């Protein structure tokens, strides 16, 4: 039986009727059309589906849409600002931290969750923060450098 949920995605409020066995990931991709959140392993191992829920980076494939009732979700589509790319996105572009791009939304959201709590992390903290996000192009070094650059530029 469908349940009515209310949630905020990228500062927009939604009221939706969802089946209990729908994941937050599938809700975002197929019901809301927010396909920037990627589906990789779909079992919590790869981090491609990372979103920020109430300030914490989480795997959206492990969360039921009904559990997101009343929660605030940020996806990659909500990261860009009116002024253009978010500084983290810009740093990824400038540092060559994007290759195939599949891990990029998750990487950026894990980085954002880190920088929102800890604006000046050291390298180890950065590596830990993205340790649940797999990049199979294995471009980790440039990703770490991009996040370091944001940390250094930020006040």
């Amino acid at each position, binding site marked *: 039986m469908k349940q009515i949920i209310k949630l905020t995605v990228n500062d927009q409020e939604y009221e939706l009727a969802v089946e209990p066995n729908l994941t937050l990931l599938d809700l975002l991709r197929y019901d809301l059309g927010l396909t920037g959140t990627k589906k990789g392993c779909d079992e919590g191992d790869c981090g491609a589906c990372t979103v920020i829920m109430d300030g914490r*980076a989480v795997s959206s494939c492990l969360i039921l849409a009904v559990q997101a009732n009343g929660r605030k979700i940020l996806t990659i589509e909500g990261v860009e600002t009116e002024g253009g790319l978010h500084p983290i996105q810009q740093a990824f572009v400038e540092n060559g931290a994007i290759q195939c791009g599949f891990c990029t939304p998750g990487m950026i959201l894990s980085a954002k969750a880190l920088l929102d709590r800890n604006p000046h992390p050291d390298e180890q903290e950065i590596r830990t923060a993205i340790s*649940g*996000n797999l990049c199979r192009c294995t471009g980790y070094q440039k990703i770490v450098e991009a996040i370091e650059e944001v940390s250094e530029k930020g006040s």
Partner: protein
Amino acid sequence: MLLPKFDYHEPATLAEACEVMAELGKRARPLAGGTDLIVNMKKKILAPEHVVSLGRLEELKGIDSYDGTIRIGALMSVAEIAESTEVKGSYAALAHGASVLGSPLIRNLATVAGNLVSARPAADLPPSLMAYGAGVVLRKKDGERFVALEDLIQGPGKTAMEPEELLTHVVLETPPSGCGAAYIKLGTRKALEISLVSVASYVSLDESGGSIASARIVMGAVGPTPLRATSAEKLLMGENPSEQIFERAGEAAALESRPIDDFRGSAEYRRAMVKVLTERTLRAAYGLARDQ
């Protein structure tokens, strides 16, 4: 992957949750962090008719002090445990175990109770919690009972819980002065790793701070449940801490471990590492106990 269909329940209070569990029993599964349950349902290992989300139960969140003990709410996330100043201050081995579990994405969802009731032999929280002598509160409609963590975990995926019971709190005694504990997880990578071997050791010193009053050593991933190395513990009792005695305890613990060969590592290697990790955790635990 599609999730099987189920009815979803979201009780607002613990009393209501116990009512629902009493009514549904085996047909229902409680849902906390979901990092095990949702995966097992996707893989069709589990297909409960009913899923009872505990997410709204405010009674099961946070830490409180209670009659010389602290009680950790079942729904406290692994990330919250790792970050808690209270846990880091008094239960450093637990905070460390929490900080190396899975990945940040998992730690932000996974709960302390989930890591215990899933009863995986390589789980990261049971060894240190057992070393601290933790117990858990199990609640059902008719009442609640207290069970030592050692008695809760009975085998891979097997616990002493009845189907309608919910784990509500993890209970730890306030540590006495002159004690310390350490946890080391050994794996082949730094994140999203299932331990090859893990060891937690707890040491308390007698009042003069000279000899070892008591010790508890718990070995993970080398048996069907986390195992106490009781002969190693006995050997340490009343002794003055020294490299020699820690080495002998490591050897005794290795003999007591019951590792298996699998694709992660050989039994022989695991046994050898039990010795090393036992020595290292004892040394670290003693260091903390002495400096306290």
